[in-house]
């Protein structure tokens, strides 16, 4: 070995260490053995052995979302890489910074259908922000540092680096992260000042303004959340957020309208519909947010702040696009607002708030309590109440429980809420909780789960036990794929095709089989005590919360309807669930 040269595997570990990476979630195999050999011989980077590569990707996502750092995944070639695809797609949809290292068969075997060969860069091209196949060990260090740069700059996303086994063994030069500047990728961070000026002036003319914020605020960092709060305090504008943006503005803040969208709050959706100036900050007019596009906030002028120019005018045409980082844009807006000593029309704003208070009075989350069965909403309400004052992180699976969690658990800080928004991946929450707990060993990390979802990645309980990660899996157990059943009731004549899970495991015994703790609650009266027991348990817990089997999640904007056509729980007695949505709406996803 020439002086200063290292093997490819050594370069990988050195690059990770130089990037400040402390944790890698992975699973070994033939094509990454040289890297695992290096992992064995060093102490800087800790490897967390998952039980399935999908688990590694979601753990890395949870880690990234809860810290603002980049998540790192290491998997082998072939099945290791294909198992990672769901998590990569999830991270792409939700803009989560992640670097995923995949092993590959040796260079000279590529294309020969070698054992455990797959075209990893081909398969992952559409589900990553960028990907690389490293063919020369002398490119390896540069590519790794570039990968971290690309994953974390601009709109964050997953990056795959595919490393053939011979490249891991070969020796070559290492370069540090300092010397890396990307040739072509330089996202625009500082917004155009003319656009800022126009945006601020438009806001100042508003009589019924609303802030519609999203995951971009969280991704932009703590400063962005701070500036958002400052801007709201300064202007007294009502604020709502997407599923991904919860916590950027505190749910306890007086301007908070709650989440918007398909299962959002009545007041938030009504205010979106009737506003005259909409300020979209780091959100992307997803179809779960807009409802019927041609009826989406018909009377408003729209400002859209986004770091990704392709998000602008994609589905909804806006009047003032502001391309740049949220924190920079808010900082500029606050500065210009102050410099011009602007203020909103006080009378008009008061009238607007009055109208909003009227909508709030509908109390859209109201549900019928029951003394004999635990209502799922009640379970989450109690979980929320009993965890006050604790340092809590929440992850979720996908389904009704996810929406109830978003409605009933209230977040006052960013980075506390990890959920699969864009892709809607069942099985996300449990491994994500593993990642969050690894990043915050002392905190209370709870996965609000559904009984169907949680079985998709259940094996990661074994990971939690191995690394002493005391995650709490709070299963809202209705024995149904509740969200599927709800749609079948609303849209398919109550024919509950394959949405009931027969033969669910006994979750308490399952917990014991994994070597963790199982707790079951069946009656409302025992719920508080059992939740406290869960919180006091210093081990991973599977909590089987038996809830009403047929509860539905409201309010809801049925597909094909507008923001002001929400279905409320009280409007839809169980007998009429089947006729609540018209024929046209039934066609839509």
């Amino acid at each position, binding site marked *: 070995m020439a002086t200063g040269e290292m093997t490819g595997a050594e370069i990988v570990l050195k690059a990770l260490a130089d990037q400040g990476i402390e944790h890698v979630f992975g699973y070994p195999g033939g094509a990454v053995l040289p890297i695992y050999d290096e992992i064995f011989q060093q102490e800087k980077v800790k490897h967390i052995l998952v039980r399935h590569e999908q688990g590694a990707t979601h753990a890395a996502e949870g880690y990234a979302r809860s810290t603002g750092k980049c998540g790192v995944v290491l998997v082998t070639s072939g099945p290791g890489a294909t198992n990672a695809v769901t998590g990569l797609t999830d991270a792409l949809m939700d803009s989560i910074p992640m670097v995923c290292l995949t092993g590959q068969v040796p260079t000279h075997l590529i294309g020969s259908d070698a054992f455990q060969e797959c075209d990893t*860069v*081909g398969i992952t*091209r*559409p589900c990553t*922000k*960028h*990907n690389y*196949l490293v*063919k020369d060990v002398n490119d390896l260090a540069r590519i790794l540092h570039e990968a971290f740069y*690309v994953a974390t700059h*601009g*709109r964050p996303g997953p990056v795959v680096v595919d490393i053939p086994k011979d490249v891991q063994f070969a020796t070559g030069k290492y370069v540090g992260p300092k010397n890396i500047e*990307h*040739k*072509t*990728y330089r*996202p625009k961070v500082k917004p155009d000042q003319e656009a800022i000026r126009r945006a601020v002036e438009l806001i100042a003319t508003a009589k019924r303004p609303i802030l519609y914020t999203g995951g971009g605020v969280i991704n932009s960092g703590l400063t962005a959340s701070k500036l958002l709060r400052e801007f709201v305090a300064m202007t007294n504008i009502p604020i709502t957020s997407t599923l991904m943006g919860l916590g950027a503005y505190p749910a306890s803040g007086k301007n908070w309208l709650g989440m918007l969208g398909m299962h959002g709050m009545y007041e938030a959706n009504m205010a979106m519909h009737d506003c005259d100036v909409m300020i979209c900050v780091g959100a992307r007019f997803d*179809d779960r947010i*807009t*409802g*019927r*596009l*041609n009826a*989406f906030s*018909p009377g408003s002028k729209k400002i859209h702040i986004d770091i*990704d*120019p*392709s998000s*602008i*005018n*994609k*589905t*909804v*045409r806006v009047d003032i696009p502001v391309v740049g980082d949220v924190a920079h844009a808010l900082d500029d807006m606050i500065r210009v607002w102050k410099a011009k000593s602007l203020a909103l029309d006080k009378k008009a704003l008061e009238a607007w708030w009055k109208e909003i208070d009227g909508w709030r009075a509908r109390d859209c989350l109201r549900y019928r309590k029951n003394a004999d069965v635990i209502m799922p909403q009640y379970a989450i309400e109690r979980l929320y109440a009993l965890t006050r004052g604790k340092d809590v992180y929440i992850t979720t699976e996908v389904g009704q429980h996810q929406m109830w969690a978003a409605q009933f658990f209230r977040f006052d800080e960013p980075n506390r809420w990890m959920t699969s928004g864009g892709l809607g991946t069942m099985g996300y929450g449990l491994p994500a909780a593993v990642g969050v707990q690894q990043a915050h060993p002392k905190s209370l990390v709870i996965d609000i789960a559904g009984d169907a979802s949680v079985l998709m990645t259940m094996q990661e309980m074994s990971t939690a036990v191995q690394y002493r990660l005391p995650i709490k899996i709070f299963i809202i157990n209705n024995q149904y794929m509740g969200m599927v059943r709800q749609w079948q009731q609303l849209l398919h004549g109550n024919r509950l095709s394959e949405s009931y899970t027969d033969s669910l495991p006994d979750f308490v015994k399952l917990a014991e089989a994994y070597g963790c703790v199982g707790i079951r609650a069946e009656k409302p009266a025992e719920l508080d005590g059992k939740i406290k027991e869960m919180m006091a348990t210093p081990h991973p817990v599977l909590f089987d919360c038996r809830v009403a089997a047929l509860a539905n999640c409201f309010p809801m904007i049925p*597909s*094909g309807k507008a923001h002001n056509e929400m279905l409320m729980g009280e409007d839809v007695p169980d007998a009429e669930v089947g006729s609540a949505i018209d024929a*046209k*709406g039934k066609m*839509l*996803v």
Partner: protein
Amino acid sequence: MNAHLASTGSAYFLETSKPAVETHTLSVIVDNEPGVLARVIGLFSGRGYNIDSLTVSETQHEKHVSRITIVTTGTPAVITQIIHQLDRMVPVHSVADLTVNGNALTRELAMVKVAGSGEKRVEALRLADAFRARVIDAGTQSFVFEITGKPDKVDQFISLMVPLGLVEVARTGVAGIARGAEGMRV
């Protein structure tokens, strides 16, 4: 706003009425790394955009830079999306809409094989002359013409050759460049 969707009643962007589509020629400067063409093509197929023509070649060897020319059809909103989607790809240096930036130059080369004899053969040669197509292969029964020009000129020449014994055509696809002193950012 979005009123053109009024009839669909859809949560999605399901357009029943088709707003007018336009054809645009885009130039894309990319780093000539492996897979970059697959990335561009994948973007078009994955997002349902049209490719009418696509050409690519390395244009600066030392800098590893290639230039891709894409002719695409879509509504103005879709064309704008395409440009943004291309521009945010990591190996893309810059994107230019040649159609918007004034009457850019577009050229295409075609090789056109025609077989026949007698009057038809004479007529083919005469037309080739009028279109400034060159004969690059000649036999007693056939010619291969090389023609360069705007795509519609090439189209026209080919259609004229059909009754005269057209056998086959090979076309390069469109290359485009803007007029004037300015070049694209690399």
